[in-house]
Every structure is written in C-alpha cells, then in structure tokens.
C-alpha cells in the first residue's frame, strides 16, 4: 500500500496542496486543448459562478411573480408551471434548479482550486475570509428553496433541517414541532420562507461584492462562449429532464424513496448515517478550518513594491495595471501639479506588474544605476538590466536567444545555454517592453517571452497586460521598430518545461532557417553616465 511520505520540513498540508495544484494544472492544461485558456471554464470558476447566480436571479424573479404563498397554492402554483406552462415557467423552474446545482458545484470547485494554488493567505486573506460565509449563505438559500415547493422532498428537508437545528442550544422549543402534523403549519410560513429565500440571496450578492472588493477588473461574467455553452447545457437539461414536484407534502407520513438533490441536500442523509452532533462538528469544524487556514505558517510574504518619488511622474499606469487595487494616486509631495503612486502594503502581491507598467523602467536610460518610479526590491529593473547585459555579453553562437520567463510558470533555467540566456521574473507582467527592444539591439537574434497560460496567470493579469503591451494595445507599448517575427510569446504553465523547450527550439529553427526575414533593429550601446 503506498504511503504518503512528506519531505523533511514540509508539512502534510503543503504536500496535499501541492499535489492538488499539480492535478488542477494538469486538468486545466488538458482542457485548454479543447477550450483555449480564455474559454476554459475551469480557469474562470468565479465568473462562472456569478453567471449561474444571475440565471438564478432572473429565473427566480419570474417564479416569485407566479407563486401563491398559501399551503396548497404554493404547491399548485409551482406544479402549474411544470404541467401547464412547461414551455416557459417549466423551463425557467428547471433552469432555476439546475443553475443552483451548477452554482454550488463551481463554488466548491472554486474554493478547492484557490486552496490548491495557495491563494488564501497574505494579500489574498481578505478575499478568502470574505468568501467563506458565502458558502453558508448559498446552502441556506438552496435548502430553503427546496422547501418552497412544499412537496414530499420539501417536507423531508424541512423536518430534517429543523431536527438538525434543534440539536443546537439556540431554540426554546424544538423547531421541528412546526412540522408535526398537517395542521401544524399555516399559510404565513411560506410568506416568511419566500422572503428568506429572497433575503439570503441578496445577502449573498452583497457578500460577493465584498468578496471581490480588493481586486481590480473583476471577471463578473465568463466569456460569451462559456456563457452560451453552459446556458445551452442547462437548457438542454431543462428540456430533457424537467424539474418536477413530488407528491404534495403530507406530514402524517414519512416521505420515502426521494429523488434527492445531492448537491444541496446531501447534509440530510449525512445526518442520518452519522448524527446531528457529527454533522455540526463537521460543518463548524470545516468553517473554522477555512477561516484559520490563512493564519497557519506560510512562506514569508513577498517584498512589496516601492515608489521612488523622484522618478514617479504620476502617470497612473501602475495604478491602472495593478491587479489587486494596491496602488492609489496621491498629490506628489515634491512636484507641484503631479501625482505620486502610493502602495498599500496589505494589498500588494509583490508581482512587479507595476514596475513593468512604469514608463521610467526603460533600460535605455543612461544612468549607471537605473532607478524607476516604482520597483521591486527583490528584483529591481536595474538588476534586470545588469543581468541582461551580462548574460547577452556571454552569449555565443549563430542564433542567440533571450528568454524572459515567469517564476510562477514553466521553469526556464533548463533553457540557459551558450546561445540562450534565461531571465526569470516575478511575473511576466513585470517585463517592460523596452527590455525586448534593448535585448535585440544588444545583439540578441530573438526574444522569447513565456508566462502562465491564458486565464492561468497567478497574478491574474500579468500575461494579459504583457500580450497587450507587446501588441501595441497597452502602455507602455513595445516600439514598432521591433520586428515581431523576432519575438515569440509562449504560454507555458508550471511543469510544462518540456513543451516550452520544444517551442523555443522551433523558434530557433525558424530564425536559423531564415523563415524570419526581418533584420534586427539597429544596434545600441548604452551611454553610461
């Protein structure tokens, strides 16, 4: 029997998380082959969850308008949708049900994926902690939604839930007494229930607003293709297996042989096979664990970006490009009429995307020590320039390449050779495009830029900004004198070193076979001051 061994000084949690990350990466890379990064649902689980939530809201509004909240009316009015108005109300009801299941599924996958990628501590603590209560709200809303139908399944869930709640020492009288016999409940119960089923999702939406509050350019919706495909899937499901009510609730008998919804109502069988105490221990234990996870020992946080007031001209590009809203602009203390970037230490991811956005981060500046407006202490642009100059000077061969990589993506160290220099960055997004021109004008024949796959950037927007900068769509632009056929962008995730090496070799072959027809931009030798 295989035994899970942990290397010395590595916790079991770290091993589990690392294996989960590898698994996610493998599946995501596989799915990229079918969907592409931008349309890969697994890379956009949060946005997909929001899309399902909007489906729930839209279909729920219609269901609310036709709902009769009397005991018999609630069952009949919903049954009417499925039986008599199947072409509209029935489909919307089915969509409502299946979208709720899909929402729960992607919510849990989103939770698992963010944990696997280690996105729950440091600057992500806020998003993680604000996300945990949303799971409770989603389940409370989902379980309550099943009660509204007031069929046998609703009866089962209502009794099972109240029996579970009664284990807690909160209620003076057992809440399950409300469901003893058919005459135990009255019409107002459903009025209250409907308001709860509307109120809790409203709290959920408010919580989601807080959840994404500290990130910029939130993906509120997935790509149009993903939306259309998932909506079509749910519509097909609604037509093939329309949601139907069970027989009306009858509290005089136990509901048996229930077509249970295992996404939402699994907690009831779990209570039956264990005990209310075990289920509450599991639920509260899991919640406490999720809240505590960010506070467990983790590697030290990355150094954060540092602003140099003398070189910050207040252009706001770093503010615009920061994926985590860690940069704000304030009045410059020394330059009248100018602004200055201010870094929020709690929000800064230490990715360096701001340094890549800064117009002062150009290696063509003649100062011996290159000081830019905003920089990373652990990898200043000055050090990048020195490394580039040193490594390019040592290159030898017919076709000299320079590879800029990302420490979160495929490892580029194995690519380093006599004719290939490799410079790994905190994130590909911290690469100022002028460094590519600088490399080509310093004698390199081709430049490779590699980073995480589309939709898989560990700092959300690094690869996207890089692509846009290189395509002259985003400042700072790559200057047009750089021949694009001497530049190759290769997305490659962690663990895809082999594929990256093959792609680099292919690029080298193109350069050597003179498929690349352009000439290098004019040579440049920095004037040193």
């Amino acid at each position, binding site marked *: 029997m295989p035994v899970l061994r942990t290397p010395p000084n590595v916790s079991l949690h770290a091993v589990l998380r690392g294996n989960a990350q590898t698994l996610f990466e493998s599946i995501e890379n596989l799915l990229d082959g079918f969907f592409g990064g931008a349309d890969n649902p697994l890379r956009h689980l949060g946005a997909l969850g929001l899309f399902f939530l909007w489906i729930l809201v839209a279909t729920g509004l219609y269901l609310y308008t036709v709902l009769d909240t009397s005991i018999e009316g609630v069952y009949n009015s919903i049954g009417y949708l499925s039986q008599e108005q199947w072409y509209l109300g029935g489909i919307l009801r089915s969509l409502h049900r299946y979208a709720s299941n899909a929402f729960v599924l992607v919510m849990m996958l989103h939770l698992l994926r963010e944990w696997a990628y280690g996105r729950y501590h440091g600057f992500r603590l806020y998003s993680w902690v604000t996300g945990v209560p949303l799971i409770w709200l989603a389940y409370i809303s989902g379980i309550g939604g099943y009660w509204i139908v007031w069929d046998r399944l609703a009866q089962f869930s209502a009794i099972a839930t109240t029996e579970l709640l009664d284990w807690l020492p909160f209620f*003076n009288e057992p809440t399950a*007494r409300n469901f003893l016999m058919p005459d135990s409940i009255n019409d107002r119960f459903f009025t209250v229930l409907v308001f709860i089923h509307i109120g809790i999702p409203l709290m959920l939406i408010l919580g989601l607003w807080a959840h994404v509050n500290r990130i910029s350019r939130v993906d509120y919706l997935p790509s149009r293709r993903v939306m259309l495909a998932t909506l079509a899937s749910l519509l097909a499901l609604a037509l093939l297996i329309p949601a139907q009510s069970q027989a009306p609730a009858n509290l005089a008998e136990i509901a048996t042989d229930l077509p249970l919804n295992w996404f939402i109502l699994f907690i009831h069988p779990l209570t*039956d096979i264990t005990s209310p105490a075990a289920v509450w221990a599991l639920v509260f234990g899991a919640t406490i664990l999720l809240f505590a996870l960010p506070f467990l020992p983790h590697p030290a946080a990355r150094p954060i970006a540092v602003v140099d007031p003398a070189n910050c001209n207040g252009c706001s590009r770093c503010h615009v490009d920061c994926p985590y809203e860690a940069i704000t602009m304030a009045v410059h203390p020394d330059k009248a009429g100018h602004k200055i970037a201010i870094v929020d230490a709690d929000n800064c991811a230490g990715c360096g995307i701001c340094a890549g956005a800064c117009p002062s981060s150009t290696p063509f500046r003649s100062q011996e020590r290159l000081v830019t407006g905003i920089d990373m202490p652990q990898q200043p642009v000055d050090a990048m320039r020195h490394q580039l100059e040193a490594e390019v000077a040592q290159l030898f061969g017919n076709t000299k390449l320079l590879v800029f990589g990302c420490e979160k993506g495929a490892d580029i160290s194995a690519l380093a050779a006599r004719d290939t220099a490799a410079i790994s960055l905190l994130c590909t997004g911290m690469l100022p495009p002028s460094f590519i021109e600088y490399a080509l004008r310093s004698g390199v024949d081709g430049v490779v830029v590699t980073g995480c796959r589309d939709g898989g950037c560990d700092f959300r927007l690094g690869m996207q900004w890089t692509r846009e900068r290189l395509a002259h769509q985003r400042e700072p632009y790559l200057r047009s004198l750089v021949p694009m056929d001497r530049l190759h962008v290769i997305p490659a995730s962690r663990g895809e070193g082999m594929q990256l090496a093959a792609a680099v070799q292919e690029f080298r072959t193109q350069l050597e076979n003179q498929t690349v027809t352009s000439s290098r931009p004019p040579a440049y030798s920095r004037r040193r001051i």
Partner: protein
Amino acid sequence: MAKPAAIIGQIILYGAFAAFIGYFATSPTYKQIPDDVALIKLSMSHLGGRECRKRTPEELAKMPPNMRAPLDCPRGRSDIKLVLELDGKPMYETIMQPTGLSKDGVSTVYKRFEVKAGTYRLSAKMNDNLVNPGFNFVKEAEVTLQPAQVLVIDFNPDKGGLFFQQGRKG
C-alpha cells in the same frame, strides 16, 4: 488542437457537465426508513408545575397594598417526568428540565422512534410536578400504524393533556 476535434471535445465536455448536474440533481433516490416501518414522534412543550404557598394575613398586611398577591409562587418550574410504553414494555423514559437560566421556561422533548408497522398498545404517562408522586397525566390507547405513517404524542391542556395524533395517509 484541430478545430473540429476541439468542438467535438467541447460538446462532449459540456454534455458531461450537464449529465453530472442532471444525475445528481435527483439520483440516487434516498430512502430514509425501510418500507415496513412507521414513525412515532414524541414532541411536547409544557410548563412544569410549581408549588405555591398561601400568604398569611400578617404577611399580606406587611406588603404594599398594590403587591398583596395571595399566593407566593417560586419562579422556577418543576422538572417533568415522562414514561412511554409500547405493548407494556418500556419504550422511553425521561426527565424534562425547564429551560431558561432561572428554570422558569417550558420543558421540551422531541424524539423519533421507528417501529414496525402494526397494532400496538401505546401508553404515555407524565408527571409535571415532581413534588407529587405518580403520574397526573396518563394516556393509553391501541394504535394501528401503517408503513411510513406518523403518530405524534403531544400534550395540550386544552385537549385533555396527553394525546395521540395520527393523520391520514395520502
């Protein structure tokens, strides 16, 4: 990946997603109790008794006129003893304690008992003031339980105290 293969792959994967959602939305079916079993639910919420003392005329005279209540009743309530028997055999016995920090709230109980469907002699006895011996509420009846049927044992002074309630099966 070639486009047609990618499209076919997408259709298969979205189909698998829909199939996964569709299956677990209703399957597998869940059976909470076996087919031949009925359910007896014991559920009651009742305020236990308390021993009040009649104040003497001297005591009343010493009190302000607006507070001269003839009885001196303690705030706390008595525990309630409850015994259930099925066909003369002990089924459940409990002492229900009053809720509240001052023990002045209702005493409650909620229990489920799964029994084979059939006819039974059901007996419930309750003493809501343990200062007194014995049981001041007793209910006995022959009950017939059909499979999956629910019988409720409850207490309501307006219904004569302990009572058994069976609804009609659908």
